[in-house]
């Protein structure tokens, strides 16, 4: 079991549900690639700043930072070109608006718009969308041989892939404009529209959220006019890039039934979308202790240890059931298993150890 083929990729996307160790795996892959001489960056979106911890860096900004050579030396490794960054969704979105607005005045108006602030900060899908935009930006600059990107935990694999599409169609706001623009554009007051269905509708909505919100929305779309095409084009470009053979998706999971189920479904969905899934990683598999002792325990401590051994056997059995599903579904050269490590992954040495299980 080894994912050695993975390291030829130009982009590696790490996916999986929450709490399985995606960030650690992303960083371990990036470390290995960098150690093999490829200039690498790992991008994480995790707000818990876990990557920062595991890379021994206090704080990452929204820009790439080189892992200091001293960190490598401390771990007994040869320093390599490895950068890391923590994606800040809001800052990325703001930069995008500033770089793409027709003029700075318009950009300022968008960024101070309350509707924009709600969308860019909290809207589900924004994290994923900005990750894609950042990926595109890093790829376009061409400074790295490999970009490893960690994804926010999602229930549905396609949340990540669909995010740009959903966001751009949201930003296009065709339907919304049909309702709103006659009302605001005409300058004749809110409800002077001839479309009666729209009037009833707007009244109902206004009753719930207030007129202020509606005019915020209208102002946002008025200022966003003309920017939409560029957003849409880039979204398609990123998608093409991800479908390319030089990109790889890996799914990280745990040896537990429902999590494994989710991961396999995840992998299937990605594949059916034409995205290259190149590995399934099971993290934190418990060790197996081959205890065959059949005699009389003879003493209380040995009796307790035998009972402990039996508890681990049950646990192994539970994990085996989940692993069997994986083995049936995924070819051997596309799966890897990482044992439960009793030291915590907080430095490069530990990441190096994790990588040694991925690339045997």
């Amino acid at each position, binding site marked *: 079991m080894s994912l050695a083929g993975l390291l030829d990729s130009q982009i590696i996307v790490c996916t999986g549900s929450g709490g399985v160790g995606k960030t650690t795996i992303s960083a371990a892959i990036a470390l290995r690639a960098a150690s093999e001489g490829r200039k690498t960056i790992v991008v994480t979106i995790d707000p818990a700043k876990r990557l920062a911890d595991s890379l021994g860096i206090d704080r990452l900004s929204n820009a790439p930072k080189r892992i200091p050579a001293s960190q490598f030396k401390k771990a007994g490794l040869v320093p390599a070109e490895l950068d890391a960054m923590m994606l800040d969704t809001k800052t990325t979105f703001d930069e995008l608006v500033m770089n793409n607005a027709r003029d700075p005045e318009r950009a300022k108006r968008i960024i101070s718009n309350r509707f924009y602030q709600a*969308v860019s900060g909290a809207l589900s899908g924004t994290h994923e969308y900005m990750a894609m935009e950042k990926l595109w930006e890093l790829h376009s600059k061409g400074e790295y041989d490999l970009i490893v990107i960690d994804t926010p935990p999602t229930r549905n694999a396609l949340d990540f892939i669909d995010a740009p599409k959903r966001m751009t169609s*949201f930003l296009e706001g065709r339907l919304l404009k049909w309702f709103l623009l006659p009302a605001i554009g005409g300058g004749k007051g809110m409800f002077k529209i001839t479309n009666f269905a729209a009037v009833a509708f707007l009244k109902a909505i206004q009753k719930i959220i207030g007129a202020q919100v509606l005019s915020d929305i209208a102002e946002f779309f008025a200022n966003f006019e003309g920017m939409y095409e560029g957003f849409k084009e880039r979204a398609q470009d990123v998608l093409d890039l991800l479908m390319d053979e030089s990109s790889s998706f890996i799914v990280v999971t745990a040896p537990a039934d429902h999590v494994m189920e989710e991961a396999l479904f995840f992998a299937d969905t990605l594949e059916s979308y034409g995205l290259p899934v190149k590995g399934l990683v099971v993290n934190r598999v418990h060790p197996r202790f081959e205890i065959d002792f059949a005699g009389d325990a003879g003493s209380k401590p040995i009796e307790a240890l035998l009972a*402990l051994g039996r508890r681990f056997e049950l646990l192994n059995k539970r994990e085996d059931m989940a692993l069997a599903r994986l083995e049936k579904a995924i070819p051997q050269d596309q799966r890897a298993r990482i044992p439960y490590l009793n030291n915590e992954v907080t430095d490069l040495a530990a990441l190096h150890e994790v990588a040694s299980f991925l690339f045997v």
Partner: protein
Amino acid sequence: MLLDALLSRRLWIISGKGGVGKTTLAAALGLVASRNGKRVLVAEVEGKHALAALFGEDALTHTPVRLDQNLYGMSISPDKSLEEYFQDQLHLGRIAKPIVSSQVLDYVTHAAPGLRDVLMLGKVWYEANRKHDYDLIILDTAAAGHAVSMLRSPQGFLHAVPVGPLASQARRIVEWLQDPEKVSILLASLPEEMPVNETIETTQLLEERVGMDVAAILINMLYPPISEDAGVTAKIEGFRSPADLISETPMSDLDAAALYDCSRFYLERRALQQEHRKRLVKTESHTAAMVDIPYLFSAQLGKQELDILAAAIEEQMT
């Protein structure tokens, strides 16, 4: 006693980082409450299937189903909550459905900050304060960071939309959430580095930004001592090599090595867990009750295992 106090509340909010076992603990807490005579509804917010699976049921929907005696489960949908809100509280009747199903509403619910969260909390509030079908609702929230923003959402909403019917609704929810006699927060954590950090951080955020105190922290998946007999545990901890085992009881070198490795793995893991547990207890125990949840070494997770967890919780809370 903690349990008596908790049982007098109307809502328990369960929060914690992804992967710490929130849903399993929410289910076990549900059993504790239902066995103490309460009619309980466990409500998920994320459309996860884990809760239903623990009871051998199909995925939950917005309509509650029975999971056990006096225990019900549902998955809250913001869209359905909004539809109900239109119908039951704004009395918009028939026009509710086309509005909810239209794409326009998507913009609108996203437009007002946190409206979707307000709607879900509104549904919980409505169930607890108007319908009274259940004595207690247990809300299984999304990951911790999200839970804080979810609980802050009514305040955020009020800031953006200070007047109107939904604003009064939001105001009622804020007051309700901040009433410690009505609502309690329980955090799920793991005795590991990052989950402990996150629990400490979440406790602070809840206190500072939401004005809510954490009633209890459940430390999940703790390895218990190897033996209930402290003398036996001490003896095992004293073993320094497989040979020490052989001098205790004659056995093959292979068996001795395997048993020794097994004990070392367990003891190391346990020591690490205890370190993190201590850190959590030191920071939090003056305000929140600490509940240790044992690691389950079993072939599967189902009703029987939930019973073990429920018993452990009940024992420590009484």
